[in-house]
């Protein structure tokens, strides 16, 4: 295995706090939520595993052997389970979902093309297929159709939301966008109130 410190991008004499911080940042970066339906999801998962292992190795060696590192490893591995698809009503659709999840897009397309029904779920799956291919405009059209056929389905709405989101593009990745920096959002307000509170406390 490669050097765990190198994997986390830190110096071997970094403090425990720094190790934890580096680990958390990387875990946020490779979090499966950032790679839902992404063709690179497997790579992200691999990276996640790598940093989990590196973090475990470091904490274990610092605690001098077997002590107490287990809690972190279980916390870390919770990140690994990528959100699988929900159960499907139609067995043919289950097969398509499986093909999509395993990245076999050609097979999924074949199945979708030969499917006799064109209901909401079919439209949703078509959308998912296009999303995976990176054809986002077509994907949106299919998601829109799925949502208009079944407006109360949370899965379809979520998918449509993801593909039509225009603002705060990299919030998940923790990277500010210029358009949001000038604004004054609820978090700023909250922080400002906390600061005021602290200052007022200090005056007393």
């Amino acid at each position: 295995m490669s050097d765990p410190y190198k994997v986390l991008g830190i110096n071997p004499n970094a403090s425990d706090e720094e190790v934890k911080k580096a680990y958390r940042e990387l875990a946020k970066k490779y979090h499966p939520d950032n790679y839902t339906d992404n063709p690179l999801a497997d790579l992200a998962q691999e990276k996640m595993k790598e940093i989990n292992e590196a973090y475990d190795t470091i904490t274990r060696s610092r605690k001098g052997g077997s002590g107490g590192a287990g809690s972190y490893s279980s916390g870390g591995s919770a990140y690994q389970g990528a959100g699988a698809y929900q159960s499907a009503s139609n067995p043919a659709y289950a097969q398509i979902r499986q093909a999509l999840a395993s990245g076999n897009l050609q097979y999924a397309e074949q199945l979708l093309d030969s499917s006799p029904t064109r209901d909401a779920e079919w439209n949703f799956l078509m959308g998912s297929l296009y999303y995976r291919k990176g054809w986002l405009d077509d994907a949106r059209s299919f998601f829109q159709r799925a949502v208009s056929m079944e407006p109360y389905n949370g899965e379809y709405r979520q998918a449509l939301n993801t593909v039509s989101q225009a603002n705060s593009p990299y919030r998940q990745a923790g990277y500010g966008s210029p358009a949001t920096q000038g604004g004054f959002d609820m978090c700023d307000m909250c922080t400002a109130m906390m600061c005021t509170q602290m200052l007022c406390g200090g005056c007393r």
Partner: protein
Amino acid sequence: MFGYVRPYVPEMKVRELERFRACYCGLCHELGREYGLAGRSILNYDFVFLAMLLWGDRPDCCYEYRRCLPGLCRKRCVCQTSPSLTVAAGYSVILAYWKARDGRADGRGARKLGAAAVCAFLHRAYTDAAGRYPEFDAQVRQRLDALAALERAGEPSLDKPAHEFASLLSFAANAAGEEEKRPLEQLLYHVGRIIYLADGYFDLEDDLKTGNYNPVAARYALREPHVPENVREEILGTLMSSARMSYAAFQLMPVSYWTSVTENIIGLGIPDMIRAVIDGTYKTVRRGLPKSPLYAGGGEMEQ
């Protein structure tokens, strides 16, 4: 259609901006050395970006001071030649040549004449570059042919023509190392989509006037340059989703010498460019590096 991919300067560190400029100059010198004046004339930001992405695990960039035509009085800091600059220079010549060929075949009026002139001007440089990178040349040719066929047919899908251009760009990932090839392919695919679609949106008015194919006009059956609000929102959403996907792919690339600069370009520069193209302010910021630092945080870009 090039030059859309650039950094967001107000958020850059001074050293990052200087490195970026040095890399830009480095690519220019590389083009001049390998392909002469014709090569230099096609220099653009997109291929500086490509050169930085293809850097891989090579050691830190070396710099030197050199003179050039715009920098006659004072020597400028320039990146020394490196394999990734050489590849980016070759690719940019090939792509520029085929784009011009396409324009010569399909364009109308002044555009056709201009493209024909560029074609003749670039021909020698192109022959050199194609001899060195025959695979990339074949790929570009094939993809642009497919794209031209779609354009001639007036393809109403946004994604189909964008796919051809995106695949062409993602082919450049083959010049990268094994570890970064897959994420880089995906990254370049989405950047290619963004370039193609943003350019389509930007050219909408011109294309409607001259009667050339325009993907946005074909997709939404637009007859006038005015784009309805909901359509604008949709295109913005599509482009931003692509930007998000390219950023997600970027996160999976190993860290290199240029990572902080490329992160700025993908994370901030591209979204900023997209917003500017969609809200119509791109024309004013197109020349040179975008905007003065005074611009940062202003409300102009709020939707």
